[in-house]
């Protein structure tokens, strides 16, 4: 009986002492963390990709997205052959492009293969607001000019700003002019060719007429046919 009472008495006072001790220690820990620097990186304001102090001090991953991340689309216009396969592949029609003729060049794609480029884009627009980042447009692209970046930050105030245009107005004018020029040349060439062909045909006809005159019976055959 007496043993139990001493035990419970001990426990009573131990509880008191422990309570005070733990509060003392706990408060010292929280005060210490009150004075430590917050680890928070104020992300949209702090530029995590360039700020060296953040990169040196932050413990978590800062390198951004993995390389195979399907982020916002980008187009490398210098190697685009304007084949329009991406536009056709897009299931929700968020890619829109118009092509015109250009001088024939050979481009080297990302996989090292050579591609012939005879047309170029006067308009190349991707509506990121519609895009669902499926990656179907990147599959048929032979030179690999359309690809996913690992960028994901693109918040804007309006939907219009989500439409990416890869041909700016100045170069569009030039491309269109150049295209018209080339079209005109091609037209002229075509006409010339046509004229040449016509001439040739006429000559041939003339020659054949001559021979026809020599061969009387055949002309009568012709007349019969007519």
């Amino acid at each position, binding site marked *: 009986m007496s043993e139990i009472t001493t035990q419970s008495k001990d426990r009573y006072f131990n509880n008191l002492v422990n309570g005070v001790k733990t509060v*003392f220690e706990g*408060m010292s820990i*929280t*005060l*210490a963390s009150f004075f*430590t620097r917050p*680890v928070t990186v*104020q992300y949209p304001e702090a530029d995590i990709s360039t700020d060296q102090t953040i990169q040196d001090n932050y413990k978590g991953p800062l390198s951004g997205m993995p390389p195979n991340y399907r982020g916002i689309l980008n187009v490398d216009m210098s190697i685009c052959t304007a084949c329009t396969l991406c536009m056709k592949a897009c299931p929700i029609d968020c890619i829109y492009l118009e092509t015109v003729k250009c001088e024939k060049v050979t481009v080297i794609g990302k996989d090292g293969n050579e591609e012939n480029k005879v047309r170029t884009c006067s308009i190349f627009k991707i509506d990121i607001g519609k895009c669902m980042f499926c990656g179907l447009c990147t599959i048929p692209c032979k030179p690999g000019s359309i690809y996913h970046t690992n960028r994901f930050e693109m918040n804007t105030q309006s939907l219009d700003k989500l439409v990416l245009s890869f041909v700016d107005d100045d170069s569009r004018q030039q491309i269109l002019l150049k295209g018209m020029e080339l079209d005109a040349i091609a037209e002229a060439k075509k006409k010339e060719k046509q004229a040449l062909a016509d001439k040739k045909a006429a000559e041939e006809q003339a020659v054949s007429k001559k021979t026809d005159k020599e061969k009387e019976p055949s002309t009568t055959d012709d007349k019969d046919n007519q």
Partner: protein
Amino acid sequence: MEAFAVSLGVHIYLVKAIIMFIIAALSVTFMAVISGLTTWFERRIAGRMQSRIGPNRVGPQGLLQFVADAVKLFMKEDLIPKGADRLLFKMSPYLCMIGVFAPFVVLPWGMGIIAADLNVGVLYLISITALVVVGTLMAGWGSNNKWSLLGGMRSAAQIVSYEIPVAMGLLPSILFAGSLSMIGLMNAQGWAPWQWSAFQNPFTMIAFLIFFTGSLAEGNRVPFDLPEAESELVSGFNTEYSGFRFAVYFLAEWANLYVIGALTTAVFLGGGNLPEALQPYWYLSIFLFLLKTFFIMFVIIWLRWTLPRFRIDQLMDLSWKYLLPLSFIAFFGQAVYMLIDHQFPVIDMVTGPIMFLIFLLVLLKFFYRVAINFREQNKTVNTRA
């Protein structure tokens, strides 16, 4: 001012009513702003203690966060649940608010600056804050929700239990001052820390700690926030409240923090008492009083982010098995001390400085622990593995 107005021919009761109205408006405005700022203060401190930053968007350093929160809450729909007791449901937030507003009548602001120096000031304060119990019980019953009801019941049990240690914790100071009025209690202490009633002798120190713990429980603060234990009772008695009524509950909760701080300061930490040389500058006394109050508020917030919550039976154990006997010991000890002090007044000169010295040693030890913890945390939190 009163006499001047009466000499102009204004009726004396009218003048008194106007003055009363002005003082009441000032107190209420002060309280609303203070409790708003305290929400910001608390969230910032909590952030820093958890290695975060806390709200820093609205206004300079997020100072106007409470305005944004209040505007948001006012925009919300005011819902009354089906099957609720509409009268009780609507009345409860205002009762809670009155229970917290009313102590401002007797809370001092500095040396001799007080709205009304009642001769039963402390008694009035203890009894009027019990209105909060009625409020939470009514909210729990009126909401027609089992979580609310449980929260309200717990709240009532808790506040009723802790009323006793709180009142008993105040008694040694009252014995010493021989007065129940706030100004009387403040005047009984001096400006220096060893003249404060908290450091007067070991018994007042115990009483101070008991009072402080008990008022945390009365204010439903963590670690005694059982009425709104989020993990057990959705949100406790205020589960069904939304919009303006919810805002009123929060106003009351954070204003209560100020009330606890001010009461502790006035009764135990020397109020706004200034040294003789500085006494003509009365505004310094207001400044000192507010400084001490805010420090106590900081300690309360600090405790909240340190300690986990009690279980309901542990809470009752603490009140009835630990705080109550200790408060009796403190009360009895103080009575004996007063008897000895009456015969040998020298003892009064000795115990104060000794207690303060012990307190300083404990503080030194505390800061030593803080320094050690700080070094370890800096290593683990802010450096790369």
